[in-house]
């Protein structure tokens, strides 16, 4: 369900930026979302489809870059990917780390459109 709230927020920003840039149509919107946020890409796409009907964003394609959960090992100074949040043992030295360096992203990166 949080997908709809997120899409609403994305649409608000894009519609504002369209006005500012004198654009009348949008072809694609790119988001960058960390895996830890547990957003379902299909639900986001469906959310945009539903909410953008009869707006200048109707038909826009949603591009989602999913960012893996990564941690930083303070012992051997290495960054590694977690398969899930409990898999936070450094593969090279066995140290457990909870310092997450990526995976919580929630960014509107860019959109592409025309006048």
């Amino acid at each position, binding site marked *: *369900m*949080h997908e709809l*709230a*997120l899409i609403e*927020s*994305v649409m*608000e*920003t894009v519609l504002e*930026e369209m006005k500012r*840039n004198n*654009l009348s149509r949008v*072809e694609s919107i790119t*988001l960058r979302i960390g895996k*830890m*946020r*547990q957003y379902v890409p299909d639900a986001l796409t469906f959310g945009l489809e539903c909410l953008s009907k009869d707006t200048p964003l109707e038909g826009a394609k949603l591009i989602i870059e999913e960012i893996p959960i990564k941690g930083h090992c303070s012992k051997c100074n290495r960054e590694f990917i977690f398969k*899930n*949040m*409990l898999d*936070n043992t450094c593969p090279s030295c066995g140290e*457990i780390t*909870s310092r*997450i360096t990526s995976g*919580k992203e*929630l*960014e*509107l*990166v*860019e*959109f*592409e*459109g*025309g*006048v």
Partner: protein
Amino acid sequence: MKEVFKIKVTLVKNILEANTRIAEQNRKLFADRNVMAINIMSAPGAGKTTLIERTIKALKQNFEIAVIEGDIQSTYDAEKIAATGASVVQINTGGACHLDGNMISEVVDQFDLDLIDLLIIENVGNLVCPAEFDVGENFKVMLLSIPEGDDKPLKYPLIFNESSVLLINKIDLLPYVDCSVEKIRRESLKINPDLEIFEISCRKEEGLVGWYKWLEKKMEKR
């Protein structure tokens, strides 16, 4: 024929920036009025309202407590809280699965904040969305009841990662359910080593003293 240009607008901004901005305003307002705000989150039925009732009963001698009740619909919980004597405002989200900064800022002027020490915000029952939305609280508190099972840290890591306190509720039911409190502890601490964990039973009023002491300590420091 008019030539069609494609224009790329690069933004790279936090999608929930608008919410974060309002939440920060709430946080500043609470700090200016010397109010400590906690955001209580759990799945439906974990015992948030009962926990709040117990907490008010235990602390009302020393602190003025107010409650914001978040529910999709109904005023059932707000009525229970009102019976304790604490001031309470009900937010009905009308379908939204979480509270956000704006919902709080819209109701907060219904309290006289100068008279309040502790503001308890009861979020909508849900383990996913409330963890995403800052409402301007000082601390997020998570309640997990043991009938929900011990696999929750793995399934809902964000809420464990965002919370300052984990209250494991309904421990009086341990003889009847297959749930390992030890596993919940171990896996929660893996996700968030700073998490304060208390094992409680709101029904039997067990284990709550540690939680009250934690709150009192934070209240002193505010």
